[in-house]
C-alpha cells in the first residue's frame, strides 16, 4: 500500500520543479499580459492608468496596421517554414548518401543555425546593400539587373528579402532533424522495395516520407512557433520598415510597447497574436498530426 502511494506521488515530485518554473516564467507573465491588456497603460502616464475592459481589443479590430501586419505574418510563416522544410529535406537526403568528406559537410551545414541572429541580420543587410552589396554586384555582372535594387528599402521586396535570409538561417534545423529520422528507417525496407521493382521516387514516396511523418510534423510545428515569434532578424535588417512593410504582428506589438510605451495596447496585440497562433497550431495538429501518438 505504502509502496503504491510512494509510486503515485513520485512523478508529481519529479515534475514539480519544471512545472513551478513554467508557472513562474511563462504562466505568470501570460496572466499579467492579459490583465495589462485590459488597461489603458502608457508607461509615462502612470496617473492615467485605468481599467478599460475590451477597449484595446476593439481598437485592434479597427486598426489597419494590425490587419496589414497579420497578413504579412501569414506570408512570413507561409513562405519561410515550407521553404526551410524543402531545403532541409533536400539537404538531409544528400547528407544521407555516402560520399567523401560527409562528416565535414554535416558539420558545416550547421553554421547558419549556429550563428547569432544579429550577425545574420547584419550580414544579409550588407549582402542586400544596393551600393556595396554582393547580390546586386553579382546580378549586375550577370546582366540580370540593369540598376542596383534597394532590396530592403523597397516595400515590394523587403519582406521577401528577409524571408530569404531566414530560410538560409533555419534550414539546417530541418536538415538535422530529418537526417536523424532517415537514419532510423530500416535499410531492409528499401531492399525489399527494390526487389519488388520500386523506382527511387516510389521508394521515397512510400517508404521515406511515411517514416519521416512524425519527425516532420513535430519539426514543422516547432518552426511555425519559432518563425512566428522571430523578430530579431527583421529588427536588425529593417526595424520593421520601410514604413510598415516588414511589420509582423510580434514586431508591431514590440514597437507599440517599447517605442510608443503603450503597454496596454501592446499587451492586447501580444495576447491576440498568441490566441491566433494557438488556434493555427491546434488546426495544424488536428490535420497533420492524425495517426501520430
Amino acid at each position, binding site marked *: 500500500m505504502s509502496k503504491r502511494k510512494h509510486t503515485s506521488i513520485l512523478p508529481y515530485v519529479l515534475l514539480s520543479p519544471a512545472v513551478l518554473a513554467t508557472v513562474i516564467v511563462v504562466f505568470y507573465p501570460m496572466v499579467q499580459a492579459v490583465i495589462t491588456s485590459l488597461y489603458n497603460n502608457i*508607461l*509615462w*502616464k*502612470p*496617473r492615467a492608468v485605468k481599467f478599460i475592459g475590451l477597449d484595446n481589443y476593439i481598437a485592434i479590430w479597427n486598426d489597419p496596421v494590425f490587419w496589414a501586419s497579420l497578413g504579412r505574418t501569414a506570408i512570413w510563416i507561409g513562405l519561410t517554414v515550407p521553404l526551410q522544410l524543402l531545403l532541409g529535406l533536400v539537404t538531409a537526403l544528400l547528407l544521407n548518401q555516402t560520399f567523401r568528406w560527409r562528416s565535414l559537410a554535416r558539420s558545416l551545414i550547421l553554421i547558419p543555425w549556429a550563428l547569432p541572429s544579429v550577425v545574420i541580420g547584419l550580414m544579409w543587410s550588407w549582402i542586400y*546593400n*544596393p*551600393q*556595396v552589396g554582393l547580390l546586386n554586384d553579382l546580378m549586375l555582372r550577370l546582366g540580370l539587373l540593369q540598376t*542596383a*535594387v*534597394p532590396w*530592403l*528599402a*523597397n*516595400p515590394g521586396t*523587403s519582406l521577401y528579402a528577409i524571408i530569404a535570409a531566414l530560410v538560409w538561417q533555419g534550414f539546417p534545423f530541418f536538415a538535422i532533424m530529418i537526417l536523424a529520422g532517415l537514419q532510423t528507417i530500416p535499410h531492409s525496407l528499401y531492399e525489399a522495395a527494390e526487389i519488388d521493382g520500386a523506382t527511387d521516387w516510389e521508394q521515397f514516396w512510400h517508404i521515406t516520407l511515411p517514416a519521416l511523418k512524425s519527425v516532420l510534423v513535430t519539426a514543422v510545428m516547432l518552426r511555425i512557433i519559432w518563425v512566428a515569434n522571430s523578430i530579431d532578424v527583421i529588427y536588425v535588417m*529593417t*526595424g520593421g*520598415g*520601410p*514604413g*510598415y*512593410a516588414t511589420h509582423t504582428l510580434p514586431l508591431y506589438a514590440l*514597437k507599440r510597447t*517599447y*517605442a*510608443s*510605451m503603450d503597454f496596454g495596447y501592446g499587451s492586447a496585440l501580444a495576447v491576440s497574436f498568441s490566441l491566433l497562433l494557438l488556434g493555427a497550431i491546434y488546426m495544424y495538429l488536428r490535420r497533420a498530426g492524425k495517426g501520430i501518438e
Partner: protein
Amino acid sequence: MQSSRRPVLRALGVASFALTLCAAASAQQTVNFWYHVDNAENTKIMDDLVKTFETKNPTIKIKAENIPWNNYFDKLFISIAGGKAPDVAVTRLALQPQLLEMNAIEPITKQLATWPGKADLAPNLLDINKASDGEYYYMPLQYVAIYLYYRADLFAKANLKPPATCEDFLEAAKKLTLPASANGGTELYGFGMRGGKGGHDNWGPFVLPQSSFAPGGMTSAKAVAANSWYIDLLRKHKVSPPSAPNDGFNEIISAFKAGRTAMIFHHIGSAKAMADALGDKVSAVPVPSCGGARWTYFGDESTTMFKTSKVKDAAWKWMSFLSEGDNNLKFNEATGQLTVTKSGSAKVPQPERFVKATMDSLAFAKPLPLVPQTADFVSSVWPTTMQRALNGEITSAQMMQEIDKHFNTK
C-alpha cells in the same frame, strides 16, 4: 596567565578593526550612474573620471554603467516604472515632459543656486533646460548642433560653393550625383539622406523653417510643399542613394567616409572619425536656409537625478563634478560632443572648422517641442511616415497630416 590573555586581546583587536571597517563601509555611499558612449573603448575615459572623483570623495563610490544606445531610453523608462531607476542618468531634453509626468526626477534648483561652477556654464544652456514648472531638473553635460558635412574636394572640382540655401543645396546635390562610369567606378550621390530612425534632424532644416508643430502648422500649403521638396530629393531628383528610406546613422556615415555621398547632416560627434577618414577633403557649414529661414536641431545631453535615489547629496556631487571645466572636457572626449563650460570651450580637441560650424549654428538651433508626444514622434511617427512617403505609399500631405494629428489630438 599572560599567555592565556594574549589570544583574547588579539581577538578583541581583530574585532575592533573589523567593526571600524564595517563602519567605514556603511558610511560609503554608492551612486548608480547610467550613460552611453558609441565607442565602448571610450568607457576607459569614464573609468578615469570615476577614479578621480572617488579619490576626491572617498566616501562615495560611483557605479557607472554604459547602456547600449538602441535601448537606452526603453531601459530607463522601464527601470523607473519598476522602481529601480539609477540615481543619476544622462538624458535628453525631449524626454523631460514624460519624466515629469511620471514624477520621476528631482529638482536641482536649490543646489544649482549655490554651485560655484554655475558661472562657468555657457550662456543660455540652463535657460534651455528649465522645465515648464519653472524648476531646473537637468544639469547641462554636452551639446551638439546638426550641421552639413560636405566633401570640400568634390565641391572645388565641380566649382561649387558650400550651399547657403535650399536651392544651392539642390543644385550642388544634382551636380555631384554621378554614375559609376563618371566617377572612377563608384556611384556618387549628392546627398546621403537618412530616412530611417533619427533622420528627423536631416528633414528639419528643410521643412521646419516653413512649418510649425502648432495645430495646422504642418498641414499648411507651404509646409506640405516644403515636405514634398524634401521627398523629391530622392523620388524625383534621385540625388540620394536608393537605400535612403532605411538608412540610419551607420549607413550614412560609412557611405560618406567611403566617398559614395558628397553631403550629409550630422554633428560634431562624428568630426574626429570624418577627419581621420577624409582629412582635409571634408569640411562643414551650418545647414542651408530654406524659405528665408534656418532651423537646425539642438541636441542636448544632461544629467538628471531620480526621485528614488537614496543618496541625493552624493548624486549631486557627481552630477556637478561631470559639468565642471576639465572633467566635462574629459567626458566630452569619450562622446565627441561639445563642452558646456566657457573655460573648456577654448580647449576643445575637435578640428576648428567643425567647432566653428557648430558655433555658427547656435543662433538658430532649437530642440524639438518640449511636449510628451515628441519622444514617440522621433522613435515611431516620423520614421514610419517618412519612409512611406519616400516610397510613394502616402503623399506629402498625408504624412504632414499624421504629424499634425500626433501632436495636436488630445
